[in-house]
């Protein structure tokens, strides 16, 4: 099959039709795939897949009809609905930043979708509705539940990640569905978007049975326009498919934290995707403390790459699947990692920025949403943008909003608040807060729980009502200065958020989703009332009505029973008058 595809490729490259010579050269694409394996401070292992399909064509012109690497379903969607940027993440579980450190790409629990539309789109809401419905079909997710009650228009938190002329936030829509459950039916369509499917290359490892036997599973699709080259005269489209899984080796390995590709995915790498122009496996082997190497990888890597990722100097062992030497020695690649000595708790590094959110108070009338934001940087303060989306049925009291840092009130330098409208719009609260060095900032806001209409309650078995994660976006000052790198050459996991300068890096964090109980009436009571009323009506009214409407006749004395009739027949025969 790979050969057939290659043949097709050659044909299209060699024989462009008349008048399409220019277009044919333009529509070049490239697929880069990579897998990043990073042991987490707790001993778990995070595996991040990134597949980047780059297409040197302008989708918006509408003239594109021939799709090669870029999935047609998404390409046509982008062209038809005037999408400028699309970011969709489906996540099962919660990334524990405090213990796992900063991930390359974080996503909130459930489904998250944010889209920038082209300025040419006139009715953004309609396009958004249509888009979410189509995506719902493509990814088998409940994205069709995105409506005006959970859509917001953030003003500051979400900037375009790709090329953009303007940042008019009216072209942006953002929605989170915290209740969404992600499973195999979402993974399969995601895998089908890959040029090699799950037949070859790194995608061989994507075995659903293993991917969902993990602590955390997050899959995402990012579409954005990027510069074609350094001069940025032309535009290309980039589709980035990422998948992050965290494997918990504590529960599966009886306390042993050594791992291998086979142990994680129950597969090994045997070949490469013939369409991929780059296919690499990175293993994070950076020493946690300076003196001792903790980890040992086998087989020996093809090269070692040093990079500064999220303010930290990292060392990666790189396996290049395209280099011929790799598969020469053995037929398959099974990366293994061994811990040289067990860890203890004191070594756990704490990320510079992490947060915690919870519902305070008790009872069913009021409550409090508390967010704790930690800045553990020893001497640098930095601002953070907090985006809070709260459903309308929690009525926020804005006057109770307090932001306390180190016992003093912390005045946000920017606040954008959009109050909710019952049954049509959620609360949106965006704030720019300065976090002093080495501090904890506590943000609290009180709310009242609304009484819903009886049809608005979910059907009986429900855990409660979910409030989506709040979003923290910050430029975190890095400890180590970063060099300007060639974006095109650096590993994929470093390049989605371009850093503005060398001294800081961009972080987007999501807090826990919340579960809130609303006052729920006893729904069995109406049932009982209906039953009782029906019984009363049936028994009392029925019999009364029966009595009132029945007409009573004075019945003639009957002609008697069977014996009497028989006797009369006999008497008739005898000629005697009947009884």
């Amino acid at each position, binding site marked *: 099959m790979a050969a057939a595809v290659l043949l097709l490729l050659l044909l299209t490259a060699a024989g462009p039709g008349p008048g399409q010579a220019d277009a044919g050269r333009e529509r070049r694409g490239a697929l880069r795939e990579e897998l990043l394996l990073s042991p987490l401070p707790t001993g778990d292992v995070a595996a991040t897949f990134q597949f980047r399909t780059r297409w040197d064509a302008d989708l918006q012109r509408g003239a594109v009809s021939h799709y090669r690497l870029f999935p047609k379903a998404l390409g046509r969607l982008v062209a038809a609905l005037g999408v400028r940027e699309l970011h969709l993440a489906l996540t099962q579980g919660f990334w524990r930043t405090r213990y796992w450190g900063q991930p390359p790409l974080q996503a909130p629990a459930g489904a998250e979708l944010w889209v920038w539309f082209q300025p040419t789109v006139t009715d953004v809401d309609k396009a958004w509705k249509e888009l979410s419905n189509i995506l719902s079909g493509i990814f088998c997710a409940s994205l069709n539940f995105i409506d005006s009650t959970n859509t917001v228009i953030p003003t500051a938190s979400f900037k375009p990640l790709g090329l953009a002329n303007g940042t008019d936030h009216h072209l942006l829509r953002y929605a989170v569905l915290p209740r969404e459950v992600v499973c195999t039916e979402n993974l399969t369509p995601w895998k089908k978007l890959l040029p090699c499917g799950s037949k070859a290359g790194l995608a061989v490892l994507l075995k659903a049975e293993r991917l969902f036997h993990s*602590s955390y599973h997050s899959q995402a699709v990012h579409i954005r326009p990027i510069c074609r080259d350094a001069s940025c005269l032309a535009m290309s489209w980039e589709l980035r498919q990422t998948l992050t899984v965290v494997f918990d080796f504590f*529960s599966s390995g009886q306390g042993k934290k050594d791992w291998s590709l086979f142990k994680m995915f129950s597969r090994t790498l045997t070949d490469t995707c013939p369409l991929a122009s780059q296919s690499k496996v990175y293993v994070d082997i950076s020493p946690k403390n300076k003196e001792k190497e903790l980890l040992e990888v086998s087989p020996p890597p093809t090269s070692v790459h040093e990079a500064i990722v999220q303010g930290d100097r990292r060392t990666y062992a790189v396996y290049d699947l395209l280099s011929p030497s790799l598969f020469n020695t053995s037929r398959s690649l099974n990366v293994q990692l061994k811990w040289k000595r067990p860890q203890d*708790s004191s070594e756990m590094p704490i990320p510079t920025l992490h947060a915690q959110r919870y519902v305070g108070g008790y009872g069913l009338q009021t409550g409090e949403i508390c967010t*704790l934001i930690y800045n553990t940087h020893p001497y640098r303060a930095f601002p953070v943008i907090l985006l809070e989306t709260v459903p309308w049925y929690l009525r926020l009291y804005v006057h109770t909003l307090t932001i306390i840092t180190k016992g003093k009130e912390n005045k946000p330098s920017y606040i954008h608040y959009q109050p909710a409208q019952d049954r049509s719009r959620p609360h949106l609260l965006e704030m720019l807060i300065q976090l002093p060095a080495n501090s904890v900032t506590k943000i609290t806001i009180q709310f009242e729980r609304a009484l819903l209409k009886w049809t608005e309650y979910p059907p*009986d078995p429900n*855990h409660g009502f979910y409030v989506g994660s709040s979003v923290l976006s910050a430029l975190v000052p890095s400890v180590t200065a970063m060099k300007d790198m060639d974006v095109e050459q650096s590993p994929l996991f470093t390049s989605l958020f371009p850093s503005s300068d060398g001294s800081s890096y961009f972080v987007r964090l999501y807090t*826990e989703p919340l*579960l809130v109980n609303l006052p729920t009436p006893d729904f069995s009571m109406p049932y009982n009332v209906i039953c009782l009323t029906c019984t009363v009506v049936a028994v009392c009214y029925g019999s009364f009505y029966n009595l009132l409407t029945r007409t009573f006749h004075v019945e003639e004395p009957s002609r008697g029973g069977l014996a009497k009739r028989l006797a009369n027949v006999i008497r008739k025969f005898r000629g005697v008058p009947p009884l």
Partner: protein
Amino acid sequence: MGGTPKYPEAPQSMGGLLLQLNTPLCILSYLSGLTWFLLLPALAPRTYLSENAMGSTMVGEGSDLGARALALARDFGGHKRKAGGMPVAWLEQAMFQLGLEVHVQPFSRTLPFPDEAHERYLVRGTNVFGVLRAPRAASTEALLLLVPCSEGSKNNQAVGLLLALAGYCRGQVYWAKDLIFLVTEHDLLGTQAWLEAYHDVNLTDIQSGGIPGRAGAIQAALALELSSDVVTSVDVAVEGLNGQLPNLDLLNLFHSFCLKSGLLCTFQGKLPPPEGPSGPAYAQSLRTLGLMVLGQAGGGPGGAHGLFLRFRIEALTLRGINSFRQHKFDLGVLGRTLEGMFRKLNNLLERLHQSYFLYLLPSLSRFVSIGSYVPSLALLLLVLALRALDLWMRLSRGEEGEGETPPGEARGSLLWLVPPILVSWGAGTALYLLPVRGQAVATQHFPVGEAEAVVLALIGIYVAGMALPHSTHRALSGGGQRGWMSLKLVALLALALLLSCLALLNFSLGFLLGATLVPPAAAVRPGGNRLPLAILLVLTTPGWSLFLVVSGWSQVSLTPLPIAGCPWLCSWFSPRRVCRCSWGSQGSQRGPRCL
């Protein structure tokens, strides 16, 4: 009542009947109320699991934790002795080794009374808890296992079992809710501190460090008390603060696992009575029911779980008992029971809400629902209503009979009612507020201890309440016959109202107070021999009844009160406020004529 001149015959005949038969009707109503209550154990239906997710699904328990739990318990005991308190560092390390996310919460509280054992005012402690994060769950829901780390070697085995269970559960993949394993110091104080910090509220002025790691809404909690290597039976406590009860399904779940594992389970220290109607079975059911009513009426929590109920976390306390019975169970059986309960709770798709929240238990396997027990109290309160009706009709008939009563006098007689009512309500409020609020002042100015100050203030106010009748005597003497009748009418209605409100909050307290207060309230009237009436009134003071209940409960159940040394908890018991106020009004209003 009297204003229906159109058909004078019917009301008069009805009224006449009520007036004539009032006393027999009252006696009948009171006796039938008591009989109804006494019949409850005999007519109680069997318990059943209402919750589908817990009832129909099967879980297998695979753990065998006995030996491991004992080893951990011994280890814990050793470190506890060495540390002379809770071995925080060791616990932290042990939980970390088990693969939990470990957090520590320090707290301190200044006590209003010096601690009984150590004569100290400031109590410092540390709670340690480990969170088992469920895979692929976003930490929105959690289950909790609580072990209070007590003084001495008490509860060591429970900590061992908690650690062993945590280690076992960590290796399992099926968790959908986070599990919190909590070890608290200073029993109730630590538990309360942890709960307040977890919900970020401050109700009792506990200074506590924040909780760095949370796990969402806690769906259910189990508290474990265990002080021996083997158990003969497990006793379950349900009563929470102010008589709150957990959802009956949680208890049913425990009962079903007892039956499954063959563990001997008791309620109020009593085994379920033999099946079938028999005299001894009825007697045992009645005794169990009585113990539960007494325990609930006391208002104190029956175990560490009692504090969770206010936060709407369904909770139970399981207490391992080691008696002289032949057959012993090792900790493995108890571990399997806990594991099974957690697995079933893990399956829950909703909060525990299907089954009853208001019930009484004559045994572990039978229950009396609110619909069955409320009529007994309603019949008691009917006495007050009948009495009030009688007075009302006599008052209105008197008006008709005299005919010429000037309207000014009628209004005047009603105005006379205001001072005694106000004074008695004030006395009730003082009874609630003064002893606790004023103890600091009292200890400064008088040579008494804090605890004595409260008791002395209470007695003082009660004694002052006895003098109230004399002070209001003059105010009422002008009203003549009508004066005391209208005062008693108001008092009866107020008592009925307060008792019914109280019964909604805490049925047991309402019923016990009703049973003791209703006869004197209905019977007292001026004239006759005053001394027996006065003695009767003093004996039925709610303060006296409460004292009897608390001491009776600890006497009858033959176990010492499980939680001692937290007298400040008393200040939250809001129903006491109600009953004190009610008695305040009652005492003073009925008093004038009989003293």
